[in-house]
């Protein structure tokens, strides 16, 4: 078959380095800007497939992707599942409601059982920070983090950056304001790591009880009032208020949060005229974002969803493609 390889080289695809192939994708904190660019450019090429009548390419035929969800999710899970299927990989999913998680099986045992079934890649969401790092220690196959506790959600940030590029064509020098519950938000953390690596100026704001300590050491500016962070922003990123994580009295009520930290027409007026509004979903309409903003032409929230599938296709291709 040597002739085949030469044939292909001569007609020639550019070839790329293999830093993602066979590896885990656990965090943007640990990801190089070059690898991020590679995911984004590959996603750019793959996005066209989503517009086809037959949304399927055979490249990952025979690969099996396991989707382990220890936290409820509709969007991310569906997005990964479709991404895998569009690339012709087979998927098997386990979620805490349907698997033996409830019976007290340890994550290590669940994971080892799955790997014995011939799974090629594991995608996991879990409520505990660092769980994907743990899974990666247990398993020999690559692990993709679909959100771990309050730590990171790297594929979400990559799709967010992809979406910003759609509208702004660049990241370097852009002003991005991330507003809301930074403390509990893995989306915020991944976006902070990803956006600052690619040269954006990131500011964050929210109730001070929901800003983590020493956040400015990550290279962002922190404000207690959203207006200050939004001033002159190109992108206003509204975080979901994670009501399920507010165990303590970090803010008094949803009403007060809406009145002082929710993104409405007034607060958005501090941003640039052409600023776009983003949200990772699912939205609490009338709490962190008003409906008129969420549904306005400036909102790119639905584009984020489409981007998500393309970015996840790219990640699966780059990790599993041509990998034996």
């Amino acid at each position, binding site marked *: 078959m040597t002739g085949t390889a030469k044939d292909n080289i001569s007609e020639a695809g550019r070839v790329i380095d293999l830093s993602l192939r066979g590896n885990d994708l656990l965090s943007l904190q640990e990801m190089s800007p070059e690898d991020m660019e590679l995911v984004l450019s590959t996603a750019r090429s793959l996005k066209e497939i989503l517009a086809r009548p037959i949304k399927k390419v055979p490249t990952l035929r025979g690969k099996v992707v396991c989707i382990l969800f220890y936290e409820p999710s509709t969007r991310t899970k569906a997005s990964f599942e479709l991404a895998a299927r569009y690339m012709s990989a087979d998927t098997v999913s386990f979620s805490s409601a349907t698997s033996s998680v409830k019976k007290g099986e340890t994550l*290590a045992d669940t994971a080892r059982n799955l790997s014995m079934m011939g799974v090629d890649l594991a995608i996991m969401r879990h409520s*505990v*920070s*660092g*769980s994907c790092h743990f899974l*990666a220690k247990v398993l020999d196959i690559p692990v993709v983090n679909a959100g771990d506790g309050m*730590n990171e959600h790297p594929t979400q940030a990559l799709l967010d950056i992809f979406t910003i590029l759609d509208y702004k064509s660049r990241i370097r020098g852009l002003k991005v304001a991330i507003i809301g519950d930074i403390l509990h938000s893995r989306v915020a953390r991944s976006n902070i790591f990803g956006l600052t690596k690619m040269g954006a100026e990131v500011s964050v704001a929210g109730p001070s009880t929901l800003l983590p300590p*020493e956040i400015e*050491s990550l290279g962002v500016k922190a404000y207690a009032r959203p207006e200050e962070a939004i001033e002159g922003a190109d992108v206003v990123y509204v975080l979901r208020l994670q009501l399920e994580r507010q165990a303590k009295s970090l803010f008094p009520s949803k009403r007060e949060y809406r009145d002082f930290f929710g993104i409405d027409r007034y607060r958005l007026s501090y941003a640039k005229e052409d600023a776009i509004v983003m949200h990772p979903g699912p939205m609490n309409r009338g709490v962190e974002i008003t409906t008129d903003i969420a549904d306005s032409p400036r909102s790119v929230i639905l584009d984020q969803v489409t981007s998500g599938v393309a970015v996840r296709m790219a990640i699966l291709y780059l990790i599993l493609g041509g990998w034996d």
Partner: protein
Amino acid sequence: MAGDLLIKGGRVIDPSSGADRILDILVVDGRIASLSESIEPENGATTVLDAAEKIVMPGFIDMHVHLREPGFEDKEDIETGTRAAAMGGFTAVACMPNTEPACDTDAVVAGILERARKKAWVRVYPIGAVTKGRAGKELAEMGEMRAAGAVAFSDDGSPVATAEILRCALEYLKSFDAVLIDHPEDMSLSEGGQINYGLTSTVSGLRGIPRESEEIAVARDLLIAKLTGGRLHLAHISTKGALDLIRQAKAKGLNVTCEVTPHHLILTDETVLETAYDTNTKVNPPLRTQEDVDALREGLADGTVDVIATDHAPHHIDDKWVEYDYADFGISGLETAVSLIIDKLVLPGVISWMRMAELMSLNPARILGVPGGTLEPGAPGDITVIDPDCEYSILPHNFESKGKNSPFIGWRVTGAPYGTIVGGKPVMYGRRLVL
């Protein structure tokens, strides 16, 4: 007891006398008989140990150990815990009462001592609970426990719950001449926390435990100690602020002592990230920052810190090989402490050998009021022999402890416990247990 024991040619370092020179030590009937530049064995029954090139110190006493028995024998028991102590160079350990049932009655104290008499490789000193069931509500029968052999009292695992019960306990213990060891932690600030609160908790997404959780509790404890005049010892101090409070209190003449652990003297919270969330870094109090490590080391040198104790907290692999939040807190420390202290503190010159002996032998003996801590003639023949040149890698499968949970696995260190002699009997020599 077997015949006499003669330890020849070692560099003897004894903080009780200030001695630091090459001496032979003769132990007769389990007690130090004499020290001299040259002692010859008197008869064939004398066991002679060659300690040339070795350092000989009064036996190390670890005053903060979790032996887990009764109740958690999957993690450790009295036999394995004391085998670990023997391997680690400790001639005695004081064991904390957070067992199941808690060590809160004279019956449990007696039970532990009875088990120790049959199974233990080194001396075991039970620490009784301050409150019944360690629940922080009612005082436990500390007098009865003291009479049964408890050397100190603590609700360790948890702080003494309220200022009021702490006040009562410190007052009450005056009648029984025993120290109260508190685990300083404000639980309302630490609840749900996994690691130190700060940049690392922000980067890792793990919930933080602020240093103030410890410092508020230390401040409370110091004020209550002042109010009562009771004898207070503060366990596992981990922050600069807490140490500053203790330093000030000591300067004002308060009768308070404190300990630090090897891991808080060596590791920072960044280890959590460097090891990709290794649960062996999960410990309470959490690993802090370099600023705290530096302050603790300064406290060792200036005398604010009285004791190095391991807070040996062995866990079964099942309790650690899980997600970070689900893992138990604790580090298995008995078998790494001496090597780490030598490699990271003595050899680099942070503390002297003499100071090490003070921190690990003399001071814990004095605080607990137990025999030992000295090589003066008449003292128990409890001796720790150190090989300062031994270089090796810390490997969990070499641990005698059931708890392999160490963040130091794979570390290469210089300096090791070479011999552990309890009552004149070598229980470990040449880095091997002596049957």
